[in-house]
């Protein structure tokens, strides 16, 4: 448990006393900074050109920063694709699907990690298949099933599918966390005569909360970024997600380069904002349950 919540900060002292900076170390620092700048350059260019008028783009090319930032492309693109609606759809999917994932994986993980049921390795192996099977190998049957059940072109189908699909990851993660759950606490509760359900609800669940929140943050992003299955199952404009709507933009709303930059910028912005807000959680999460 503690393993999960601890931040992988570096060891010791660095903060207190820094090593001496030599010319060579400044050089390496500069080189790395350059790498970071190159890495961020595409985003910078999207910003610079999204805020340019078409005339200014033609006159001064893509590299300069606009003299007078122009919001016309962004607001036009927003209105044309009804971006508010796409945002809402993405938020619905990325909020509800993780709830399902967490519910399912918490139960499974409780059996595996706390209950230590026989055959848990095999069960985990089964869930492992969710990582190796490509979505292409599921998408057509899902598409048929969605139509049969009247869930085609319905966000609910996406919520259910990703709720289940991502629960495999959640099961892995939570099982590994719960397998290290302090035995003394469980024993104490049992001696008090608590049922396994009561232990789950009033002891394990609250203590696992921080981990569940990290998990939810990650699932939020993954569900936000999903592409193939929504592409197949959500044909209506009104049901498309942000990631999906972008695949349809080229040539439809964006016939000139500045408008295309605006589309890319607008599509990327929610993710980037999310990243800044949850950066710490994310960095912790990427490495959560990582190899010890």
């Amino acid at each position: 448990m503690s393993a999960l919540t601890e931040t992988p900060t570096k060891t010791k002292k660095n903060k207190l006393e820094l090593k001496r900076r030599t010319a060579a170390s400044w050089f390496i620092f500069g080189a790395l900074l350059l790498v970071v700048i190159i890495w961020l350059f595409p985003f910078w260019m999207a910003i610079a050109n999204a805020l340019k008028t078409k005339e200014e783009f033609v006159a001064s090319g893509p590299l300069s920063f606009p003299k007078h930032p122009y919001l016309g492309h962004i607001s036009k693109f927003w209105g044309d694709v009804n971006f508010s609606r796409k945002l809402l759809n993405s938020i619905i999917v990325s909020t509800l699907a993780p709830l399902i994932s967490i519910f399912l994986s918490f139960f499974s993980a409780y059996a595996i990690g706390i209950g230590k049921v026989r055959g848990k390795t095999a069960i985990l192996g089964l869930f492992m298949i969710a990582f190796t099977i490509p979505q292409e190998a599921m998408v057509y049957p899902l598409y048929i099933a969605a139509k049969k059940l009247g869930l085609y072109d319905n966000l609910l189908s996406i919520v259910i599918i990703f709720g289940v699909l991502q629960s495999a990851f959640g099961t892995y993660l939570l099982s590994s966390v719960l397998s290290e759950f302090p035995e003394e606490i469980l024993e104490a509760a049992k001696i008090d005569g608590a049922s396994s359900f009561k232990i789950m609800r009033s002891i394990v669940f609250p203590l696992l909360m921080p981990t569940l929140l990290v998990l939810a943050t990650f699932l939020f992003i993954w569900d936000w970024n999903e592409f193939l299955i929504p592409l197949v199952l959500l044909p209506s404009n009104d049901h498309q997600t942000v990631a999906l709507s972008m695949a349809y933009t080229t040539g439809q709303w964006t016939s000139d380069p500045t408008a295309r930059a605006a589309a890319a910028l607008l599509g990327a912005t929610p993710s980037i904002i999310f990243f800044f807000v949850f950066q710490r959680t994310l960095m912790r999460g990427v490495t959560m349950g990582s190899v010890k």
Partner: protein
Amino acid sequence: MSATEIASAGKKSSHKAKTPDTQKRRKAKGVGERRGQYYFYLIPGLVAFITVIGGSFFYNVYISFTKWNGLGHPRWVGMQNYTKLMHDHTFWQSFVHAFYFIAAMSIIPTFLGVFLAALLFDYVAPRFGNKSAAFMRAGMYMPQIVPLTITGILWAWLLAPTTGVINNFLIKVGLDQFALNWLGEEKTAIFSLSIIMVWVQIGYTIVIFMSGMSRLDPSLQEAAQIDGASWFQRFRVITWAQLGPEIGVVLLTTTVAALKVFAPVYVMTGGGPGTATQVPAFFSYFHFFTTTKVGYGAAVATVLSVLLTILAVIILNIQNRQEQGANKR
């Protein structure tokens, strides 16, 4: 990023999930007698998983033995789709291209990632502070967070041969001969996509490796330093060697992700020019929904699933063996 990290995290935890085995030996007694009731908790997860994922997968396998255009009823044709697949040049080519993506998403980011993580972790941080290192890490992680469709739109725009930022920049600084037709030529298209995927992936590997380094015992580094080992020597002998488990995780997860690549190809090249950027996932999609040879598309997807599963098992086994070897030592 999704696939990668899901898988990565999964692998990571699966690795961990082995630890319960050892723990069980120690602790099983306490819980043993009432273990049976816990099976009950598995029901929701397993039922959902088997219905949605298992059901879809096996139905897809069934479709792969039929001829079907998606309307009416599938007609059973046995192995016909698979036989055709074996002789389909484009199918084999798509796997060759997958190796470019394995290089771009797995091998290169792993090597570069370890190196950059080490620089950030035990070179930059000790000299310029944790904040500087964290800032740089965040900067390089940014591409991971954005949906791949948007990454595709962004890069197709950057790489446009005449209006694009990249070529305009190259021409401006006098490097006209490097202002290539990035996505328009067979030779450069797969290369361009690969570079983009390196850009996407490197943040993931850096974050994993930096966290791995934080678990290493600093005294080793310090001892080596006292012995006069250079930074690079320490990197090679200590850091690299000790990061074995993380490297295994990263290689597994990113290789699986590389074989599944779909969105960038869909958005940027549609598999072209010719078949220069055709990959298995896109090839399968093309037959499902464009040529509507659903059975054939299902066969491609099935083959890909089997290969991915075998590959994952192999990588896991190699890694386990190495770890066991290391433990004995």
